[in-house]
């Protein structure tokens, strides 16, 4: 066995804080060899980012670090900032989550690349320039000579992350730490960036630490996986082993909580109850005990060690659970699942065919253009941004319609058009049969608003921090003139309904965790008994284990109350789980629209196919063997009115078409065609 490139031994990190010492990392050890990839997964606050910052030596002065970090034969802990600077960016590099804030906005990217190249070694200006262009070419930036002079804001998010990777590769590093490198990016871009990181790895022979909360990304990239919880590793194993022979309840919960894009049968997700513990003065007990469904008395007496539970044939497999030997493959204990499946009631509407249910929301030919203005004083109109280009759909009672697409495709604008009750020029929006064009005056508007309510993405921003939860939930009731006594009883009822304790109703939102806040937002939206609830990325800001609980709640409420959802998301796995019907949106228009199984089992439009193949599946065997369609390029600009298919510039089908068919793509806008209500797509050749 060769010497490991990086060896971390019993690393502990603690921060002083006003409420006491926060033990962010409580003893983590691992070895990493050159060319291998270690995936560190865990929820927010589990200490994964702190670990990476400790390796990079980027933590504050007042932080206490103990243990040992040996990189390439040198002990890193105890080195001065100056000594570390010689290693950072040279042998040891980091790729951060937000590509915008990790590039300096006032220098062009050429300067930043050349700085990275020349800071560690002597290089002539000409040689550095040439090498920089070579690097940009390697990471797939088109026209690198010209782009050297561009500033970070002139690049899209994906392109910026490529530049960051180019800078990371500049000095042929031995270890690349990627901290959530794709979290801020769209799925199609995420697939490109992950491929690029593995390309960078194979070219430089570097080891990679991939820090993420996304099990799919781990399944795709990692050789070994380390699951972290409350500042400690709770399970450590080779990727295949971890995904198929999980031994620690938390890891089982994490895997069960993820909606799968490749699973058709609809079963409830397994939420992990409760919240991670505060890392202050933790007792000597298993930190997961309060959330664990198979907890026994012994769990509370001492914290379990990370012990080897592997055997000869599978190699090393460490887990920190005293009952891990009882857990068998597939997350079973005594033949029962560790996490019992929650019951989701069957909707009474399930038996009624779709055509017989009343329409709750109908949108006909919705369009929205924003004028592009220039000039500070006298504004001139330069052009128009076509945010929505004529979309139509309807939602029936008890049905979930999802709109998916990358950022900038116009899905949020669609929601705002509905919520703002915008009168359409050449179309209409009907909310339970009432056209928004007929709504005049405050009273009529309030009556209509009862039927359509919204849940926002950011669970913190959507709740007024100055109001108690009771006031927040009662607000829509007061707006329609419900009496005080009546709305108070209703508040208790709603809090029960969304799984919150009504006795907490006089607390402020800041006393609740993210998932609980989102439940408050849902309770508020349900207060007026709406027919349609509009959900704007309701779970994308939540941790996986919390997300599952909220998704289950939405499922349950739909079945109980016969609600209709208009669901906007970029996460296709969540959509597959929750939606009945799906519309795929690209540059302001639907490119495919139909029932969820049709779209996911039989995607027809090339964009839908690419989108589906870009989603990482949390199963290393499937993930590493499947064929992937990687889209080139970014979302086109919505400014120009395109004569033909707006997707043609990125389309993988377009490239293999004969020239006369290509001309049709470029010259003729494809309409949505196919079986009405079942499956329609906007491609000439599908």
């Amino acid at each position, binding site marked *: 066995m060769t010497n490991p490139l990086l060896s971390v031994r019993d690393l502990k990190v603690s921060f002083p804080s006003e409420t006491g010492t926060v033990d962010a990392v409580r003893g983590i050890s691992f070895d990493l060899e050159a060319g291998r990839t270690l995936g560190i997964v865990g929820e927010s606050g589990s200490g994964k980012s702190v670990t990476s910052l400790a390796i990079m030596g980027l933590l504050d002065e007042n932080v206490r670090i103990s243990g040992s970090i040996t990189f390439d034969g040198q002990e890193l802990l105890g080195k001065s900032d100056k000594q570390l600077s010689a290693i950072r960016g040279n042998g040891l590099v980091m790729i951060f989550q937000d590509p915008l804030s990790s590039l300096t906005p006032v220098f062009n990217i050429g300067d930043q690349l050349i700085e990275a190249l020349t800071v560690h070694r002597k290089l002539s200006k000409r040689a550095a320039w040439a090498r920089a262009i070579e690097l940009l070419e390697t990471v797939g930036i088109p026209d690198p000579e010209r782009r050297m002079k561009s500033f970070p804001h002139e690049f899209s998010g994906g392109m910026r992350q490529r530049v960051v990777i180019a800078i990371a590769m500049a000095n042929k590093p031995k270890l690349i730490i990627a901290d959530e490198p794709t979290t801020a990016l769209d799925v199609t871009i995420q697939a490109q960036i992950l491929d690029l990181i593995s390309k960078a790895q194979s070219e430089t022979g570097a080891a990679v630490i991939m820090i993420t909360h996304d099990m799919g990304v781990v399944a795709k990239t990692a050789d070994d996986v380390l699951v972290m919880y409350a500042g400690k590793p709770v399970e450590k194993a080779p990727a295949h082993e971890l995904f198929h022979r999980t031994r620690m309840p938390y890891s089982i919960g994490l895997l069960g909580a993820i909606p799968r894009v490749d699973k058709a049968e609809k079963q409830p997700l397994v939420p992990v109850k409760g919240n991670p513990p505060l890392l202050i003065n933790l007792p000597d007990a298993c930190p997961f005990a309060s959330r664990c469904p198979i907890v026994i008395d012994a769990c509370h007496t001492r914290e379990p060690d990370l012990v080897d539970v592997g055997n000869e044939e599978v190699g090393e497999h460490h887990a920190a659970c005293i009952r891990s030997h009882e857990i068998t493959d597939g997350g079973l204990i005594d033949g029962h699942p560790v996490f019992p499946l929650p019951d989701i009631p069957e909707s009474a509407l399930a038996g009624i065919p779709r055509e017989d249910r009343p329409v709750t929301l109908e949108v006909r030919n919705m369009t929205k253009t924003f004028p592009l203005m220039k000039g500070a004083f006298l504004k001139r109109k330069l052009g128009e941004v076509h945010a929505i280009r004529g979309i139509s759909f309807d939602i029936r009672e008890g049905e979930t319609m999802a709109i998916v697409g990358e950022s900038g495709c116009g899905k949020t604008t669609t929601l705002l058009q509905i919520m703002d009750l915008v009168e359409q020029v050449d179309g209409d929006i009907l909310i339970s049969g009432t056209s928004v064009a007929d709504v005049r005056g405050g009273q009529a*508007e309030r009556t209509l608003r009862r039927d359509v309510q919204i849940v926002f993405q950011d669970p913190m921003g959507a709740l007024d921090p100055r109001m108690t939860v*009771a006031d927040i939930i009662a607000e829509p009731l007061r707006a329609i003139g419900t009496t005080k006594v009546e709305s108070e009883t209703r508040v208790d009822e709603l809090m029960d309904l969304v799984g919150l304790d009504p006795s907490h109703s006089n607390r402020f939102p800041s006393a609740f965790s993210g998932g609980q806040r989102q439940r408050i937002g849902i309770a508020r939206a349900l207060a007026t008994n709406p027919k349609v609830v509009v959900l704007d990325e309701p779970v994308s800001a939540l941790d996986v284990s919390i997300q599952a609980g909220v998704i289950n709640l939405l499922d349950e409420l739909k079945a109980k109350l016969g609600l209709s959802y208009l669901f906007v998301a970029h996460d296709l796995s969540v959509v597959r789980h929750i939606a009945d019907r799906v519309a795929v949106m690209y540059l302001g228009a639907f490119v495919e629209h139909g029932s969820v199984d049709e779209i996911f089992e039989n995607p027809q439009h090339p964009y839908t196919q690419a989108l589906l193949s870009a989603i990482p599946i949390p199963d290393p065997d499937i993930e590493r063997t499947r064929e992937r369609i990687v889209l080139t390029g970014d979302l086109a600009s919505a400014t120009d009115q395109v004569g033909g298919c707006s997707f043609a510039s990125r389309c993988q089908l377009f490239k293999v078409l004969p020239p006369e068919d290509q001309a049709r793509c470029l010259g003729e806008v494809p309409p949505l065609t196919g079986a009405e209500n079942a499956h329609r797509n906007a491609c000439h050749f599908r």
Partner: protein
Amino acid sequence: MPRNSIQPAVGPETTALRLPRKRMSKWELYSRRFRRNRPAVAGLVIFAVLVLFAVVAPLLARFDHIELDFLNLGEPPSGEHWFGTTSAGNDTFAQVAIGLQRSLMIAVAVSVGTTVISAVVGTAAAYFSGMFERLTLLLIHFLMVVPTFLLLAMFSNDSGGDWRIISLIMILIGWFFPARVIWTMALSLREREYVHAARYMGVPGMKIVLRHMLPNIGSLLVINFTLGVVAAVMIETGLSFLGFGVKIPDVSLGSLIGSGANTITSAPWLFYFPAAALTLLTVSMALVADGLRDALDPTSAAGGRA
């Protein structure tokens, strides 16, 4: 009701069974959090004592503030004249009490007036945007270039030193600077999701301004109010010093400090007693403001705890 609709209400039949439980009101919560802050409580006590002094002292004093005691001209504090007398024979104790009363009335009236006007105008301009916002800003920017102190001096001189006219003018020239600041603060608030959420619930515009926008700049308003009190005392002092403010026989802390400053070496009590009253007034206001901010602000060190 459309055909086949089975939309049930969320259990109105269970509603009746629930007994309305006593909920802690917002004010109970705020006062509990305020009381935890000891310096703030001390500030409030000092302020209350000052107010009490201003109200009760003139009733208890043996001398009227206008009355002249020709037997005691320019005497230091004694059993008869607790704070001493002026060279004309005025009782300083009575003068300080009346002066404090006058200054308090002016300061609080002006500060309440400017804070309310600036807060409502500033946040409403930000929320309603469009034409209303443009016109309001135009007015504010126009008022900013008007020489206000000159106007104030002119009007207060014309009014013959009536404190009510002086307060009114001070409100009219004092609201637009804070309004401009509050407008910029409120710009970020109007894009908050809870403001959108309230609009999508059908809450009327002015209600959103008062319920969601104003409380969320509450700590700024509290600071504005305290600084407003201090600033109003200052302006009033300046006016009185120049002879444009409150006029004899009426007195204010400003005019007392102004005349006391002339005799600080020969008769220091004429300066120190009104100056001490002024200092206590401003310090107590600052402590109260600090406590209020912590009590009202859920993100402060006190946290969201009750």
